[in-house]
């Protein structure tokens, strides 16, 4: 088991280092991530939403549905905690007498 997890760790590390040597340079303004979608957010955020903070406007407007999902994730976690920690009358795994 110990060797298996070490093997997995080595594999993931090798894969990551192998991949990261081929990513665009750090902070390169010509990189696709900085060229394709995001410039428009910065250019138009004030004009479209009156919001100088581009993160807020992207968060709540351009990609607002992700944020709805994120709020739902928090909500799910809350309900999950209520469900898991609710005290039960019959303790543990005992199946109660079948109702008849």
């Amino acid at each position, binding site marked *: 088991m110990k060797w298996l997890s070490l093997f997995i760790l080595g594999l993931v590390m090798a*894969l*990551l280092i*192998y*991949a*990261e*040597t*081929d*990513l*665009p340079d750090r902070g390169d303004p010509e*990189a*696709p*991530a*900085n*060229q*394709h*979608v*995001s410039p*428009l*957010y910065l250019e138009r955020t004030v004009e479209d939403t009156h919001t100088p903070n581009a993160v807020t406007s992207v968060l709540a*407007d*351009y*990609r*607002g*549905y*992700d944020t*709805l*999902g*994120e709020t*739902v*994730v928090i*909500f*799910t*976690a809350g*309900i*999950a*905690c*209520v*469900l*898991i920690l*609710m*005290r*039960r*009358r019959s303790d*543990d*795994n005992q*199946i*109660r*007498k*079948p*109702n*008849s």
Partner: protein
Amino acid sequence: MTYLPILIPVPLLLFAFIGTLAGLWRRSLAYGAALLGTAISLGVATAGLVVVLSEGNLHHFLGGWDPPWGIEYVLDPLSAFMAMLVTFIGLVVLIYSRQSLLHELPERVVPLYVLKLLLLAGLTGIAVTGDLFNLYVFLEIASLAAYALMAVGGRQSAMAAFRYVVLGTIGGTFYLLGVGFIYFSTGTLNMADAAQRLPALYESRAIMAAVAFIVLGLGLKMALFPLHVWLPDAYTYAPSAVAGLIAPIMTKVFAYALVRMFLTVFQPDYFRVTLPVTDIIGWLSAAGIVIASILAIAQRDLRRMLAYSSVAQVAYIGLGIGLANPLGMIGALLHILNHAFMKACLFLIAGGIRFRTGLVDIPLFAGFGRLMPWTMAAFTMAALSMVGIPPACGFFSKWYLVLAGLDAGNWVFVAVILISSLLNAVYFFRVLEQVYIRPLREGVAEEQVREPPAEMLAPILVLAAGIIILGIINVVIVTQVLYPVTEPLR
């Protein structure tokens, strides 16, 4: 008309919140909210499938922003098909779960129903989304709901759920990492846009790593063979109404997400020729089918046997994806549908038996066939379908997989499917023998062994009837829905 895609997950979400508020006031209202939300969603999904088949794909731009900048929802035949499957199974299991939960966990019904709605919302969201990151968000909603739902069956189930949390988080985070590689290489998160920009970057090592991480992450979530370690314990100890909901659809939706990556985001040839992804998935699945089937034979606990059988059946889907030809993909997608019906039916029957008698071990089921005729008839139907006897639907997906294996000239896979049918026959006929031939065990009170109440029996019978109906109309499904989906593979 373009409203249809968004109206599939949103009723589920809204009724989850309304159900919470109503449930705080009066406990029984949560069930009504769950039922109503799922029914609306099923109606919209059905309408969506009809519209999509006649008028072509529907696109909904959330927030009114055009795709690469905003999030896009796409309803095409495949996603409408998945959404309809998820909501249908969800509705049937919800009807079943009222009695079952009142019996097993009467104090916790409100959060259980709310989490079931959120689980369904997450899964339908995965089905209809057209955005890589949005898929991650909904994947996490579905996963969190599933962790919690699986944890309430007692102390073993809590431990099983914790292991699922650890492995599931690794899976989800690997997927996020893969999306990160794609984003930093292409600059976009929209699936259609990424599909356009990716072919120029196929030589890039970052994209290869992205593929590896996405396949690993989704593989962990869908319990593809060597990554299935969380599944048997989790399904065994979960409450029966939850196992009946999660086992049929959860892993299948992640399989669908993998298919979507394979067909929509990347070109199939990238997975088939440039990288040996489909070969690896195929061979691992072939090993998984045989090993998991043998492990299923060794189990005494019916739920554990079904869990191992689930691993084997997910591996069938993996085998179809691994064959990577049109027939294989049709077989895999048809198996998603068929297996959802069969496994839901089987888990609900296991829950029904446990509801009446409290028994889970197969040898103790001796002689039940006489006392629970309808339930056991449904069990026989599902078992025959799992083995692959012609009128039932399980035969047809295996048939397409065998054809695909012959088409690809891969005799090993064909042999694996045939052998596994024999193994399936072994472990299901073992149960059938106990049920129909052996006399009732000493110590099992005869008056307890009765049909479950009508509210639980009806969903079982609906699913059993569905197995036959799907078998009969499978030609329609294949030609209308699944055949156009495999267009990129041709």
